[in-house]
């Protein structure tokens, strides 16, 4: 990791990030990139988790960043879920050194991806936590308290943008889920298909999809794509 600037945080970078996030009012404006301007990390990914906005990646600075989020979504465990649940920062400054503990599956997966450290900030507006902002590095890293404060502020701005988009979405008359690079629409469709194929509930169907994804070492979305594309049928 590089040498920290005097004062412990890049305040110019932070200011640029604030400006960029505040200006990101369009529905498809990137909310992730600005975090890289504020802190010297390798990647950033934002997701909404659980109620009330649903579980889905919002943006990611790279394919690796998207993967870091997707594995946590698929496994249903990880620092992003803890940050979401507790409303507090969850910091793993050195993934390699920590053994045992929580999220064993995620730890293994993250190490296999080469991730050295990860910090999950709650995505929250006041008392309402709707998801998480994960920033990670390929090497071990600690965040300076000033950096923590800065990223916390940035997360709050990002959260407002996410919430506003969700409110606009909810008020629109669209009845179908939008597509997009991180849409999990096909996961829900596949749950319905597998429920019909196996004569089970959609909740159980999702478990089947997840089990198959883990067994095959792919993502739940990939399995869903196979199902919706009629290349995979659990009923036969």
């Amino acid at each position, binding site marked *: 990791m590089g040498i920290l600037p005097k004062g412990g945080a890049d305040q110019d970078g932070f200011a640029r990030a604030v400006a960029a996030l505040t200006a990101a009012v369009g529905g498809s404006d990137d909310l992730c990139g600005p975090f890289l301007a504020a802190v010297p990390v390798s990647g950033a990914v934002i997701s909404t988790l659980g109620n009330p*906005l649903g579980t889905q990646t919002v943006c990611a600075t790279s394919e690796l960043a998207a993967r870091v989020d997707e594995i946590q979504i698929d496994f249903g465990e990880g620092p992003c879920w803890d940050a979401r649940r507790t409303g507090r920062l969850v910091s793993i400054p050195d993934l390699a050194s920590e053994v045992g503990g929580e999220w064993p599956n995620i730890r293994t997966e993250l190490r296999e991806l080469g991730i050295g450290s990860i910090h999950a900030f709650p995505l929250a507006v006041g008392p*309402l936590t709707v998801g998480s902002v994960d920033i990670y590095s390929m090497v071990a890293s600690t965040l300076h308290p000033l950096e923590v404060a800065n990223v916390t502020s940035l997360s709050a701005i990002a959260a407002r943008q996410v919430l506003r988009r*969700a409110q606009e979405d*909810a008020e629109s008359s669209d009845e*179908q*889920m939008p597509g997009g690079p991180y849409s999990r629409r096909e996961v829900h469709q596949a749950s*319905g298909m*597998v429920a019909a194929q196996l004569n089970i509930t959609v909740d159980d169907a999702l478990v089947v999809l997840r089990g198959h994804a883990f067994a095959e070492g792919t993502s739940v979305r990939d399995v869903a794509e196979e199902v*919706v594309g009629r290349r995979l049928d659990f009923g036969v």
Partner: protein
Amino acid sequence: MTKLTREQSLVGTFVAMADSLVDDYDIVDLLQRLVEDCILLFDASVAGILLLSGSGELEVIVSTNERSEFVGLMQVRAGEGPCVEAVTTGRVVSVEDLAAMADRWPRFAADARRGGFASIHAIPMRLRSSTIGSLNLFRDQVGEIDGDDAAAAQALADVATISILQHRLAEESALTQLQLQRALQSRVVIEQAKGFLAQRKDIATDAAFDLIRTHARSTRTRLGDIAKQVVARELEL
């Protein structure tokens, strides 16, 4: 009331209000108790609270005297009077006698005389730059309200303001969360139903959506409700 008893009563009122900040409570009940405590604790014969509604109008939320004349006295009668002025200026408006009142608010003064009031102490309910209403103490003697009473009443008004704002914030937040959750759940179940029907009928998901939508329209039911029934196997399309 002896000074010691009054202290105890005052503390009791503050404790009750502070409790309301942590527990579930009915906001109107709380404010009613507050004005009733005010006339017991302070040198006032009648008390009432005005609050700004969502549409920006002033309303009498609670008062110790239900008589319509009194209620009318406090209200926005051509926007006049100390109770209204405390809200619009965000400052305490204290009037010692009817003569002073008559100068500033002739119509209000006439109503006050008819009601038997000789002086008024109107306290804005304010948090920083936001004034949401006023706590109004009506007295049947001429003269300034006791300094200790004024200070204590101000403190009660402040706590009441925080209670109201916190209550409103919690309500808005809960409503927003509920709306978002419903919208999300509706969309999820519609996608699930599309997949379910697509599999059952061996059709494309788009065609499945059309089936659901057509049925929803012809039965005047919400799409999300139809989708829920399809997925629960309660409805065959």
